[in-house]
C-alpha cells in the first residue's frame, strides 16, 4: 500500500536513536514481523529516494479526539546516520510522511513449542520487537540477545521485558550487561529445539548464521542493502544467493525476496 501518514510522536529514546509513531490504515494489521516500510521524508528532491525501515510495531490505539473509533498505527525505531534520518528526527506530531508498506517477506515463526531466540545488534533490534510481540501472543517462549557498542546502543529493553521476553544484554565496552560481542553470549546458550531470528550489521549476521549452521539450529536473518524502489523493480538491492558463482549467478532482491532470508539461502563468504 501507499498512503500518507501523520506523525503521532517522534521521541529520542537513546542518544541518536528515535522512535516514531505514525497513523496507518487498518490493513497494516495484516502485516508480518520482519516486513518493512519505505518512507519519503519530504515532498522535495533532497533527499530524493525513500528510506527503508523495519516495522518496529503495529497496533491500534484510541485517538484522543472525540467521534473517532480505534485507529491503526505503526512505529519505527531508527538511528540518525545521515541526511534523511536527520530530517526525520526533526518531524513532530501532525507532520505528514508518505509510506509504502508492508514490503518484503517477513519472519516465518516456525513450529510452536520451539524456543524462539531473537538476536539483535544495535538498531537491528528494530524489527525484533514486532516479532517478539507476535510470538508472545502465539504463546511461544522468547529470548532476546541484544548487543551494542555501548549502553546507548541497547534500545527498548524494558519494552521487551514487559512482553515477558527473557533478555540478555552485552556491550563491547561492558557499560551495560556482559562485556563482549552478542555472538559470544549467544553461543553459550545455543542448543537444540531453538530457532534463531537475527537482525543487525552484516558481520554479526554472518557470525550468527555460521554459528547456527554449525549447531544445526535453523536461523533467519534480516538483511540490509541500498534500495531505490522497494518493490523488486530496480534490481539495486540484490545479494548473492548461496549458489552464486560468477558463471551461474544467483542474485536475490533484499526488498522482495527478503529482507528476511533463511541463513542457508545466502552466500556468507
Amino acid at each position, binding site marked *: 500500500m501507499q498512503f500518507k501518514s501523520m506523525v503521532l510522536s517522534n521521541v529520542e529514546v537513546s542518544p541518536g536513536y528515535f522512535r516514531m509513531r505514525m497513523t496507518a490504515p487498518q490493513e497494516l494489521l495484516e502485516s508480518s514481523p520482519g516486513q518493512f516500510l519505505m518512507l519519503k521524508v519530504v515532498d522535495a528532491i533532497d533527499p530524493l529516494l525513500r528510506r527503508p525501515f523495519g516495522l518496529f510495531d503495529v497496533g491500534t490505539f484510541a485517538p484522543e479526539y472525540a467521534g473517532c473509533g480505534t485507529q491503526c498505527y505503526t512505529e519505527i525505531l531508527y538511528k540518525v546516520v545521515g541526511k534523511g534520518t536527520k530530517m526525520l528526527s526533526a518531524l513532530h506530531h501532525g507532520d505528514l510522511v508518505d509510506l509504502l508498506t508492508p514490503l518484503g517477506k517477513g519472519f516465518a515463526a516456525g513450529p510452536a513449542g520451539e524456543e524462539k531466540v531473537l538476536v539483535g545488534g544495535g538498531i537491528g533490534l528494530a524489527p525484533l520487537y514486532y516479532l517478539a510481540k507476535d510470538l508472545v501472543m502465539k504463546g511461544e517462549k522468547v529470548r532476546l540477545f541484544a548487543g551494542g557498542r555501548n549502553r546507548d546502543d541497547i534500545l527498548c529493553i524494558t519494552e521487551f521485558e514487559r512482553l515477558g521476553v527473557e533478555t540478555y544484554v552485552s556491550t563491547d565496552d561492558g557499560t551495560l550487561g556482559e562485556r563482549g560481542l552478542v555472538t559470544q553470549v549467544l553461543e553459550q546458550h545455543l542448543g537444540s529445539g531453538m530457532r534463531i531470528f537475527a537482525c543487525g550489521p552484516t558481520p554479526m549476521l554472518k557470525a550468527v548464521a555460521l554459528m547456527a549452521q554449525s549447531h544445526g539450529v535453523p536461523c533467519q536473518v534480516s538483511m540490509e542493502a541500498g534500495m531505490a*524502489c522497494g518493490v523488486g523493480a*530496480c534490481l539495486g538491492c*540484490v545479494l548473492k544467493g548461496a549458489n552464486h558463482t560468477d558463471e551461474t549467478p544467483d542474485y536475490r532482491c533484499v526488498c522482495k525476496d527478503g529482507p528476511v532470508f533463511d541463513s542457508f539461502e545466502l552466500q556468507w563468504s
Partner: protein
Amino acid sequence: MTRPDMSVEIAGIKMRNPVMTASGTFGYGAEFVGYLDLESIGAMVSKGLSLKPKAGNPTPRIVETPGGMLNAIGLQNVGVDAFINQKLPYLKDVDTPVIVNLYGNTLEEYGEVAARLDGQPGVAGIEVNISCPNVMQGGIVFGTDPQAAQEVVRLVRNNTSKPMIVKLSPNVTDVVLMAKACADAGADALSLINTLTGMAIDLDKRRPVLANVTGGLSGPAIKPVALRMVWQVAKAVKLPLIGIGGIMNARDALEFILAGATAIQVGTASFLDPGAAQQIARGMEAYLAEKGIPSIASMIGALEV
C-alpha cells in the same frame, strides 16, 4: 465540457495517453500492480532484455546523488526466452501496449533478440537500447558512434517487422548527429535520453561507491539536459520522439511535449512513487482540461522560441 483527447500514436502503436514507463524502472510491470492501474497509462517498456539471462553487476549497484541517482545494475535480466515464456503471458491480458527494450552484447545478438520477439503478438514494439553506459561490452560503443549505431539499427530493422524505437545516449558531443544516423538506418521513432555517465566516491573508504565504479545518472538532476536534447532533435529529425529524463510530474511531462516529444517515459519517479506514471497521466489531462486545450497532439512541439 468534453475530456481532452490524450491519445497519441508512435510508429503505429496507439496509446491512450503519452505516458510510458521507462525501461529498467518498472520491472516487468507486474511489480507495480496494486500501486497503479496498468490500464491507465499509455504503454509499458520492459527491463532491457538480452539473448541469454544476464547476472548484472556486483553490488553496491545504486547510490543517491544530489537530485538524482546512479545505477550500475549491469542490465540484469531474465533473457528474452524467459521473458516470452514467463512474463509476457501475464502482460497479454493487460490492455496496454507492451514495448520490449532490448540490447545485445554483440552486434549479432541485437539481431537475434529482435528476431525472437518478432513473432510475439503480445509485443507492440521494440525499443533498442544502444546507449546503456554500464556494460563494458555492448551499448557503450554503439551508442556514441554514428556508424556503429547505424549498423545496429539496420541489423535490427532486418530482423523485425515491429515498430522500432531507438533509444539514444546523452553521452555524446552531438545528439542530433546520432539521431539522424538512426533515422537514416530505419528507426521508426527515437527515445531520449538514457542515463548520463557519472560516478560517486566514498570519501572515508577512499573507494568508488558503486562496485562498477561508474554508473548511469537519472532523476530530476538530468531534466535540463534531456529537455535540451529532445528540443534539438525535434528541430532536426522528422521521427516521433519519446522524451525521457527526470520527469517527476505532469508539468515536467508537458514541457517535454512542448519541446517536441510525442510521448514521454517515467523512470526514476516510479521509485519515489510507484503510482507516478498514472498520476502524471492524470495530471496532464487535468492541465489540458483546465486550460481548455482540446488535444495533447496540439501541444507537441508547440514551444514558441
